[in-house]
């Protein structure tokens, strides 16, 4: 019988230091993964944690990890050539097929950007698949900006608004992402989708702002983060009412997400 909790060893190919607290690990892996899915990464004797796939390519996957505790600190101690254990992919994905041929607005806060990066890279490489793409990405300050090269490139093909919580800097406006949602021409779009990723408060304020600007709740998609221990529907940690975020999520339509009461 297959043991769904058994992690498999994978080789780390390279590590990029995005910020002092966020590193991107490129890991050897040939799985087929959809945009928005995640893996459970682990270091034996330290622990496990769910981490989104932040990029995918021929023979590798990338994970962008924020150092916050026991396991993530352990992972920061690993480098190219070291082994990391993984199981997955888990969870559903963004409905990318539905996004094709339409306008797409992506609103991302901080490390949340990791969960949409592979999708953004896909549309950057295949701009013909999407009518337009607006990216609003917010960071705490200049030192917490992730994926600098991607952000630069995205400017060429997407409409981009980058902002920092309380400072202005070259290429970055000052303020929270919610303040720039008003610049999105929802009324000019005939058919669009909105994706929101980030910390819980940022998601809820951003969704409310979109609704106030006339967006239709059925067109808003969010990726929810909840405590997870198993990621396969057994441990109960991620449950919200009758919904398991590890199984039915992490991506939810806002019309459903707004009714989920923890």
């Amino acid at each position: 019988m297959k043991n769904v909790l058994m992690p498999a060893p994978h080789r780390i190919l390279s590590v990029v230091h995005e910020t002092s607290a966020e590193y991107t690990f490129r890991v050897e892996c040939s799985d087929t993964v959809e945009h928005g899915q995640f893996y459970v990464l682990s270091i034996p004797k330290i622990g496990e944690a769910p981490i989104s796939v932040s990029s995918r390519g021929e023979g590798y996957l990338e994970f962008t990890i924020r150092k916050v505790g026991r396991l993530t600190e352990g992972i920061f101690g690993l480098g190219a050539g070291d082994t990391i254990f993984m199981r997955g992919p888990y969870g559903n994905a963004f409905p990318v097929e539905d996004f094709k041929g339409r306008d797409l607005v992506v609103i991302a806060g901080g490390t949340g950007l990791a969960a949409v990066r592979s999708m953004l890279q896909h549309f950057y490489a295949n701009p013909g698949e999407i009518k337009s793409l607006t990216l609003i990405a917010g960071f705490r300050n200049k030192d917490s900006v992730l994926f600098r090269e991607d952000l630069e490139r995205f400017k060429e093909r997407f409409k981009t608004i980058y902002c920092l919580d309380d400072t202005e800097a070259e290429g970055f406006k000052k303020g929270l992402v919610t303040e720039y949602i008003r610049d999105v021409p929802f009324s000019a779009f005939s058919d669009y989708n909105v994706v929101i990723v980030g910390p819980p408060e940022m998601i809820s304020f951003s969704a409310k702002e979109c609704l106030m600007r006339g967006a239709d709740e059925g067109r808003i998609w969010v990726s929810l983060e909840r405590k997870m221990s198993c990621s396969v529907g057994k441990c109960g940690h991620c449950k919200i009412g009758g919904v398991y975020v590890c199984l039915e999520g992490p991506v939810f339509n806002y019309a459903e997400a707004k009714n989920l009461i923890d």
Partner: protein
Amino acid sequence: MAGLKEKYKVYAPKRFPNGSVRYGEIDSLSEIVVDEKSHFSPKEVYLPIAQTIFYFKDSRCEESRPEDERDILIFARACDINAIERLDTIFLKNGGTEDAYYKRLREKVRFVLIECAGSFDGCFCVSMGTNETGNYMGILRDGKIDTQSEPVFVRENKKAVKIPDIDESIVKDVFGLEYWRGFDEECAGCGRCTAVCPTCSCFDTIDVIYNETSLDGERRRVWGSCMREDFAAMAGGHNVRKRAGDRMRFKVMHKIYDFKKRFGVSHMCVGCGRCGARCPRDIVFSDIVNTLADEAQKLKAKGGAAL
């Protein structure tokens, strides 16, 4: 009994030195405590409090192996026998995968029915429809296993519980009830209620290293409790159920609303009443369920308007 023990590991409710009645291996049927409800449920036999799932040796990860080849015979009451189906739903069905650790023990489990001479304090199995079962090999009668007779089941409890009539039209209002706030202070968040519950299945996963200089260690599954404050705590200080009342709501709604909504068959709670009996704050689950039934009725009468 010797013949039985050759084929089975035999578990039954027995008295432990500290006075509590809980499941343990027995050598003689006379050890079984029949005239009292066990304080703990039999779930610890097939869902151990702590279980090694992987051994880490050097850089390898090996699945743990069960220690005993024998089948498992458990002396249990109807409510607890029904409870195992709830655990089966989570561990063998939810998410379309089977949990290897649960399955390997579960497959071995056989039951002998302990009949209830009368209903114990706090029981409400009749209300939950769990007072009867057909899942047993024999009945414990007069200190022997009887495989011929028909069982006698409890038909009435001292306590009757009304199952709240909750549906989509009022569920948001039920979540929003001011009633839950009372538990913010009242409930200590100790998790005793979930430890004794035969249907609580949540767990945590922890890695341990044998000692500072060792290269070896293991990954363990240990019982978790949604009533404890850290159950939903995430990195960055986010905790979606910081208040005890929110955690009480989460547990109660799972037991008598959303488990059935998701899986369709029965409510999760089997009405054993252990949670109320073990609570240091005298919070009685069946009273909560009855209060909710009244509140749900009021909400329905109002056409779902918020209180």
